């Protein structure tokens, strides 16, 4: 017999929209959703217009792209000046434009989030306390040490030019590197990236582990998405009653389900691999090669070398 609340008549008409907004998602839920969106994008889980099958970069040989991007990342790691990094970053943006990637989305992905975090971490390094140098901005200047009980504060504290420059270079380097990574993952299927790594002599086992990790991350991101969707589909979730506490409980529960499901999935995937003959050795499927895979790495190598050398040659940067 059905319970009474399933059988009573509907409770009057559905209210019309009243123009008031329900309370926003909790910080935790918003953060998780942002992480999920970022991962989905970075792992190549979401379709990027012009990415996979559109532009010239998408059609280029993956081995060439992987090598080229690695060379440019190396250049970004070696560059010591903000303008060199900026130039490298502009090159990435130009490449994105020329191959038809959504540049606005690329810039948002690159600059919102991780570089800001880097900036926050680099903040103390701008102070004269950490990095002595030309003061740009005095925070205080009393001359002698200030004692606050057991604590001794320096008599002078300033933001230094050298400090700011160092932090700026760090943030730019992060952003530039991320830009090239997105350029790669948005135009190359993960299998192509694996093939590129193999061509560079990375051991097959390492590449296989990377590929499996990628696969699991993708699945976990999907599960996370499903869990959020499932929760949104239930009442209460929208009613605004859910504050931080229930959200935390939900996240904790969701992580539990996630771990369990991924454990089951791991076992099942392993069984499927075994029945199809997997014995621990990885063999990759090589489609017919495209021509001139060395062209991109050559150009990237030249650009990278030029960028790094221009800083170090007399009369250069």
């Amino acid at each position, binding site marked *: 017999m059905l319970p009474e609340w399933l059988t009573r008549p509907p409770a009057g008409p559905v209210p019309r929209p009243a123009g008031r907004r329900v309370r926003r998602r909790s910080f935790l839920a918003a953060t998780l959703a942002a992480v999920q969106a970022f991962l989905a994008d970075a792992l190549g889980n979401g379709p990027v217009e012009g990415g996979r*099958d559109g532009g010239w970069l998408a059609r280029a040989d993956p081995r060439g792209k992987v090598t080229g991007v690695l060379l440019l990342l190396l250049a970004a790691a070696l560059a010591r000046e903000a303008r060199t990094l900026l130039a490298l970053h502009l090159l990435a943006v130009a490449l994105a434009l020329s191959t038809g990637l959504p540049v606005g989305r690329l810039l948002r992905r690159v600059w919102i989030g991780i570089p800001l975090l880097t900036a926050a971490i680099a903040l103390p390094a701008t102070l004269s306390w950490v990095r002595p140098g030309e003061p740009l901005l005095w925070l205080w200047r009393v001359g002698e040490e200030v004692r606050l009980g057991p604590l001794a504060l320096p008599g002078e504290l300033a933001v230094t030019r050298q400090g700011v420059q160092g932090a700026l270079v760090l943030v730019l380097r992060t952003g530039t590197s991320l830009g090239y990574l997105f350029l790669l993952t948005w135009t190359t*299927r993960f*299998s192509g990236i694996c093939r590129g790594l193999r061509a560079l002599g990375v051991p097959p086992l390492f590449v296989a582990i990377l590929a499996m990790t990628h696969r699991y991350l993708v699945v976990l991101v999907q599960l996370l998405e499903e869990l959020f969707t499932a929760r949104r589909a239930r009442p209460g979730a929208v009613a605004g009653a859910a504050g931080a506490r229930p959200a935390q409980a939900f996240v904790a529960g969701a992580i539990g389900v996630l771990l369990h499901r991924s454990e089951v999935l791991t076992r*099942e*995937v392993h069984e*499927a691999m075994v*029945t199809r*003959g997997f014995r621990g050795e990885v063999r990759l*499927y090589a489609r017919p090669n495209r021509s001139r895979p060395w062209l991109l790495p050559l150009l990237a190598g030249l650009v990278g070398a030029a960028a790094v050398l221009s800083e170090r040659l007399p009369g250069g940067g």
Partner: protein
Amino acid sequence: MAEPTKQGEPKQGEPILQVEDVWYRYLGRFPALAGVSLAVYPGEFLAVLGANGSGKSTLLRLLAGLIHPERGRVRAFGVELRPETLEDAAFGPAFRARVGVLFQNPDSQLFNATVEEEIAFAPLQMGLDQGEVARRVEAMLALLDLGHLRDRPPFQLSGGEKKRVALAAVLAQGPEVLLLDEPMAGLDPRSQDHLADLLAELHRHGRTIVMATHDLDAARFLAGRVVVLGEDHRVAADGPPEAILRDTALLRAANLISARDRRGAGARE
């Protein structure tokens, strides 16, 4: 559905798969098989019928050598399936190449980045050269009408498409025995017909097929023999489909037809 393609079942000779008084419990507590015996002969098309939870998937996993019974024995090609025999350098790879398994959950069966690589996986593991692998991939893409999906990641496809990719990946290894766990579930009618035709044709070419299902129609049209697993995790019946699918009392007891269905399954023919 396909035309009835059943042939006289060649039940002579050595069984190709054999299960002798097998017991299996999950985590030592949840019973899945309680004393099951069964032999499958070369070239047979066997349907394993049973309600949800009767132990069909467990039986197939035992036959695939993925789990091992607590009691009893499982043999394939005359060799007992034990961890040692499956790791044997001669028997293990040969067993894997000859036995193809289609799992119930296609999600866990698809672990490659693209449909094409999914299909190439088994042939590559078998050590075939790239040219032969490419030929098999093309043939499977054509056979299962997957050409337009070749570059897509399998986990982004619809349920029915996933099933087709999983089947293509299994068939690419050229198995002589097929263990299929609910192959029809989740397919639309046209795909079901297509799959039924394909299975019938594989059977005509001498493939041995064990298909777990609770779809009585599929069993009726395709199988040459039916084994019913009861809800007590034992074999409730084993014989020709005509006789078993007419036995309304048996089917009702095994929870394979609704108690409401007064005519019984046999009357629908």
